[in-house]
């Protein structure tokens, strides 16, 4: 019983000492702010904590659905990640720079990212009719409306 409470005390002290703020000061590199296109109110397509852990699963799942089944929803699309998180300025950092949204974290965690050997690493303005500022749901509605007017 005494042992258990000691362990809890020690754990509590450790947690108290290593606060996120101090960790950011001492351990983490300074990650530059990405020029986000989405509004602060909208947020990411999934909770940030979830995205940090599982973004690769979402992207992988979407990748196979898009390629084999032609499902082109925007929620977990890599293109939309880039559209929202990477600046489209001409001098914006490329994926080989630590200031690129993806590479900033991938460099820190020492995980190589292969996506951008083939995929575009920054937004490209297309001549299409899609507005980049719509949510996936709005996008779907817009597409359904387009389809009806086309017919």
């Amino acid at each position, binding site marked *: 019983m005494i042992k258990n409470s000691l362990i809890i005390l020690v754990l509590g002290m450790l947690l108290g000492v290593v606060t996120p703020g101090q960790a950011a000061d001492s351990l983490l590199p300074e990650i530059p702010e990405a020029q986000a296109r989405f509004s602060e109110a909208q947020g990411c397509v999934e909770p940030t904590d979830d995205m940090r852990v599982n973004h690769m699963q979402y992207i992988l799942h979407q*990748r196979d*659905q898009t*390629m*084999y*089944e*032609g*499902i*082109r*929803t*925007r929620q977990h699309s890599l*293109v939309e990640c*880039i559209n929202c998180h990477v600046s489209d300025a001409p001098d914006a950092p*490329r994926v080989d720079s630590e200031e690129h949204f993806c590479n900033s974290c991938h460099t820190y965690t020492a995980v190589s990212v292969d996506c951008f*050997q*083939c*995929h*575009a690493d920054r*937004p*490209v303005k*297309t001549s*299409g009719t899609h507005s980049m500022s719509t949510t996936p749901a709005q*996008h*779907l509605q817009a*597409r*359904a409306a*387009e*389809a*009806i007017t*086309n*017919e």
Partner: protein
Amino acid sequence: MSDESNIDSYRRRFLGGTTAAVAGLSIAPGVLLHEVAHARPADQAVTSEVRWGMLIDTGKCANDCTDCVTACNDEHGLEGFGRPETDAQWIRKVSLKDKQTGHTQTLPMLCQHCEHPPCVDVCPTGASFKREDGIVLVDKHICIGCRYCMMACPYKARSFIHESLQDQKPHAPRGKGTVESCTFCVHRVDDGRKPACVEACTAENHNAMVFGDLNDPASDISRQLEQHSSRQIRADLNLNTGVRYRGI
């Protein structure tokens, strides 16, 4: 006698009934196909109810015109490196010359999107595949760049990427060490639009290329195929190509 005439009338009623039922069936899928082809929502998978195809009228294809090739290169960001032997080409103009008469005609050659694609047969990793709606693609995530498919394709439709690339189009990811070919502009087709080459050909009023659903008897391409004679290139291979040609 009266029994026989009764049987006859039963038969007639039965046959009449079935014909009506069959007619109803054939109209209903037609309507359904039309809807699928033009308004498939973004979150629904493609089905084999649609088979995309192309009809090229070589009689309308001017010998010196390369609008379709230019449109394709622009759409997918295909840039040459000054090495024509290895530069990527998804669509190219091929010249045919009758040696006896000297008559020359040209036609655009692209992936024929076969029903039985040899490139898919030979692929050792399963990267080469055919979508449910008949579009033949390469899954570049699992392509190892062996180029068996390039050897197997009777139409020389595929290219290998030899150089590291940058600034690819978001809708057309391309990378060194993989094989690629015409995708029938799958990103446009999924969006209810026509391939870039067809759009360019139509925009310039050449109208030599028609794109549509081969399974839909009401589609423009199906009607034209029914009205005019057309042929598959290397039909002897029984690949049942999705691209057909008129006037050759």
